[in-house]
Each structure stands twice: as C-alpha cells, then as structure tokens.
C-alpha cells in the first residue's frame, strides 16, 4: 500500500469515531468563543488559544485569568492543577504514543480527554495504520475545537436556536467509553474504585475542587490494591 492510500484509509477509519466529538466540540467550542466574545476579546484570541492550548476546561478558566490581574505563575499553577489528569493519560499511552515518528509529538501535544479516550479504547482494524489513525483522531478533534471556538468568537452574538442540553453529548460519550471498557474488562475493581472515589470526593470537596483529591485517592487505592489486582490478573 502506498503512503497516501494508508493515510486515506486511516482517515476514513478514524472519522466515524470522532463524530460525537464533532457535535460536542462544535457546541462547546462555540460556547467558549461566544464567552470570549462577550468578555471583550477579539475573535483571534479564542482562535489562537484553541489552537495552542487545546484543553477545554482550562481555556474557560483562562477567560477569567485574562480579565484579572497579571499573575503568570498563578496561571501556570492553575493550569497544572486543572490538567493534572493528563499525566494519567500519558502513563496509559506510553506504549501507544511511541514509534510513530513525528506524529507522536503532535498526538501527545493534542492529548485532550476525548482524543485520549478514543485512542485508548478504539479497536483499530488490523489493516489500518495505527499511527495515522490516532493522528487523524487527534487532528480532527483539534480542528473541531478550533473551528467552533473561532466561529463563536466571530459570530458569537448572532446565533439563536435552542441548543439547550446539547452539551450532554460529552457526558453520553464518556458513559459509552466507560461502558465499553467495562465490557472488555474481566475485573471491575478499578472502574468501581474510579466512580466510588470520585463521587466521595465530589461530596466532600465540592464541584470546583474535587478533581485533585479524587486523582490522589484513585492513585492511592490502586496502589494499595496492586498485589491483589496483579495476582488476580487484571486484563492485559
């Protein structure tokens, strides 16, 4: 197969996996662009930030940071806290995002929640080039986000139709990904620990502050369970 045929078939295989992200990012990105627009920023702010940061939640927080006073170190600390979960993704992708040449650099740069989830769980057909498949998943997601944010920034105040509830597409997607993982696993200890610990931390620390304690607690629980889980043969 020639390189361009390999690329094309990888793109064809990757696209259907990104359709829910298209719906979600178009909407969320647009919301973000509109938010920037009404906060007084020109459209090229969300355009450039969606391209260079490509991490939804921190971009929303960035709007407030940019409206406040100049505290670059505080901005860095906030970013590290909000995005600390990416470290988990990286640990899980150490094998997958290696050996694909320059594409690895881009895929690691673009490892948002959605790109990680798809590339971690997707059953890539044997005849499809894995590197190109994961590359196109990342690139398409990046483009959707950029596209939504830029449109929102330009046309922000002009759009009126009832999209209330469309953001549920992201929740639905993570429920499906969780369920797919559940159906693949023989042992559900980790999945149950993830839900249980997260809910407990949400109740204890509240919606704004629960992510860091939840991640620390998940790490703690899985570390304590290492012996039984490895002995019980957690799925490979």
């Amino acid at each position, binding site marked *: 197969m020639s390189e361009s045929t390999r690329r094309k078939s990888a793109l064809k295989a990757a696209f259907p996996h990104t*359709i829910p992200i298209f719906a979600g990012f178009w909407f969320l990105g647009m919301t973000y662009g509109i938010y920037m627009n009404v906060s007084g920023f020109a459209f090229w702010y969300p355009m*450039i*930030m969606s391209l260079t*940061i*490509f991490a939804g939640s*921190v971009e929303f927080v*960035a709007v407030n*940071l940019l409206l*406040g*006073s*100049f505290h*670059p*170190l505080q*901005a*860095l600390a906030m*970013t*590290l806290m909000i995005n*600390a*979960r990416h*470290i*988990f993704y990286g*640990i*899980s*992708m*150490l094998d997958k995002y290696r050996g694909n040449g320059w594409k690895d650099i881009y895929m*690691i*740069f673009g*490892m948002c929640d959605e790109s990680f*989830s798809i590339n*971690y769980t997707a059953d890539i057909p044997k005849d499809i080039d894995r590197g190109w498949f994961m590359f196109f998943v990342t690139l398409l997601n990046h483009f959707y986000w950029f596209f939504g944010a830029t449109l929102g920034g330009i046309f922000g105040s002009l759009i009126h139709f009832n999209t*209330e*509830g469309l953001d*549920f*597409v992201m*929740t*639905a*997607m*993570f*429920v499906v*990904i*969780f*369920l*797919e993982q559940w159906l693949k696993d023989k042992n*559900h200890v*980790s999945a149950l620990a*993830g*839900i249980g*610990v*997260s809910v407990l931390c*949400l109740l204890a620390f509240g*919606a704004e502050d*629960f992510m860091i304690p*939840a991640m620390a607690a*998940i*790490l703690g629980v*899985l*570390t304590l369970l290492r012996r039984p889980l*490895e002995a019980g043969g957690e*799925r*490979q």
Partner: protein
Amino acid sequence: MTMTFMEQAAMIGMIVFGTALTRFLPFLLFPAGKPTPRYIQYLGRVLPPAVFGLLVVYCLKSVSLFTGNHGVPEAVSIAAVIALHLWKRQMLISIAGGTVCYMILVQLVF
C-alpha cells in the same frame, strides 16, 4: 482590560506551557530506551477504567440531587445511553439517542 498585550501573551504562554507539560511529562520521565518501572506499567494498565469513571463523574459534577430537576433528566438519559448501547453496541446510536433524550427532557418536559 487591565493587562497590556504583552502581559496577556505571557499569561497565555504560561497556560500553553503548563498544558503541554502535563501531557509530555510521563513521556519525558520514562523514555523509550529504558524499561518503564513495573509500578508505572501497572498504573498504565489499571488507571484507564478508573479515569473513565472519574470523567463521567466530572461531566455530572454540577448536577444537584436536591434542587432543580434532582438529576432526573441526567439519570434517565444515562439509562437510555446504557440501554441503547447494550442493545445495539453502536457508539454513535447510543450517544445520539441519549443526547436527543436529554435535550427533549430539559427543553420540553422540565
């Protein structure tokens, strides 16, 4: 706006740097040439199911069980997603079905 353009650029630069750091860190700490510690390999294997659970909770973090809709539209729509998925096992159908269900509930019912 109280910040100058250069100050804004520095703030955005910090956010770009911080985000990239969280993504590249594991790959920098555990380079390809050296064997990855067994503990990290174990984490790479068992973390994803827990993290997907965390992401589901993260999406639902603002749902209040005691006020407003009491989380009913969310609960019904998630049940719809799960039922559709167990039935058809088609990712797009499950996601689209659940989302349409949620939009109908929040726009027309509640």
